[in-house]
């Protein structure tokens, strides 16, 4: 079976829901979830984050390192109750996750890691 994430062309132009942590919502000047439009055909972690940074350039460097493109150490990526943080950024998202995100039934969550004591 081919997932919406892996199927060529399936994700192109799709709007997906993204939840940002409070500090980044403030920085971007938004409330609640944001909708971003994908500009590549396959749904990947990088596709979502590129769309977020394209829509909100002020977030450049706050989620991923500008130079390496790597996730900042205290940032996590979740969707459909799965931790996607350590998945390769260019790997198609898992079938069920991609289907839910493309369908708009689930958001892609950018989360600030828990810290404190």
């Amino acid at each position, binding site marked *: 079976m081919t997932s919406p994430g892996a199927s060529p062309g399936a994700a192109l132009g799709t709007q997906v829901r993204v939840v940002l942590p409070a*500090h980044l919502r403030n*920085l971007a000047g938004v409330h609640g979830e944001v909708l971003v439009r994908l500009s590549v055909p396959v749904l990947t972690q990088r596709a979502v984050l590129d769309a977020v940074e394209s829509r909100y350039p002020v977030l450049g460097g706050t989620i991923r390192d500008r130079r390496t493109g790597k996730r900042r150490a205290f940032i996590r990526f979740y969707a459909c109750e799965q931790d996607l943080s350590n998945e390769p950024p260019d790997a198609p998202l898992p079938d069920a996750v991609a289907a839910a995100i493309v369908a708009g039934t689930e958001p892609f969550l950018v989360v*600030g890691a828990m810290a404190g004591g």
Partner: protein
Amino acid sequence: MTQVRVLAGTRKGAFVLTSDGKRDKWSVSGPHFGGWEVYHMKGSPADPDRLYASQNTGWFGQLIQRSDDGGATWQPAGNDFGYAGGDPGTHLWYDGTLRPWEFKRIWHLEPSPDDPDTVYAGGEDAALYKSADGGLTWTELTGLRVQPSAPGWQPGAGGLCLHTIILQKSRMFVAISAAGTFRSDDSGETWRPVNRGLHSEGIPDGDAEVGHCVHHVEAHPSQPDTLFMQKHWDVMRSDDGGLSWTEVSGNLPTDFGFPIGVHAHEPDTIYVVPITSDSLHYPPDGRLRVWRSRSGGNEWEELSAGLPERDCYVNVYRDAMAVDTLDSCGVYFGTTGGQVYVSPDSGDSWAPIVRDLPAVLSVEVQVLS
């Protein structure tokens, strides 16, 4: 009417404190950028309503904020702080191994005295950046980091941070913990260490060119060749533009500390906040004191009026002292306990402006007409 504006950067945001020239009643706005560390804020001498702020967290990295209305509103500026020229190479790590240069944060912002759109930024790992477009884009002045001693620089406990920037037209000084003080005579193109006369425990070579944990350096505008330094231990003075240094700790109860300030109208009047030791970062005997020298060092007097007499165990960080330019020079400092103190009479008496801010990282002051 004269207005005084104090810019306080803290562990959990920025605060703007304002008063009239009497400096006895203050209003407080903030937190701006609540929840973020604000290592430094500073206004442009050329346009006092142009402010720059360095905003950072371990979660979301480095941002630069800019205000064009004296801090009422802010806009994010550029945050692309790379190391120019490809592979930045390595410096020494604490354990003596080699460590790639890695950008972490901006410690200090120094706006140009002449152009509100030109501002310099000191980074960790040690690098000097310049923006000529109001902070939108930044260029590393690589001459400092490719200086021959740089691969041997080692971080101080706070990191390999460039925390002091002094602009004197084409001549510039920067200071780095724990590398030392560096001077450029060509607007930042090339640099040389200027640390002769500094002696530091923990450096086996008593004449070491670099490796000194300089905490802060200040110069009075009317005497550009005279520099005052609070080193890890030792208060130092140079009268030849940093080429040589002499110790002026004199009768201080301890010469460990972080900030040093110079009176706005008396170039030989300087201020320090003695701290017990490198392992006890609080004032001796729990009594917070500023010490003043009117002779450029060596002879110091204790200033205590209005400062805590007991049970005070705060620290005062390197960028958390400032002076204003009113006729009766005001002196300000902030503490890790969240107090910002003002002396409207050159240090003779003190009063808290605020008592319960987050830990104060930096204090700057502007006088507005």
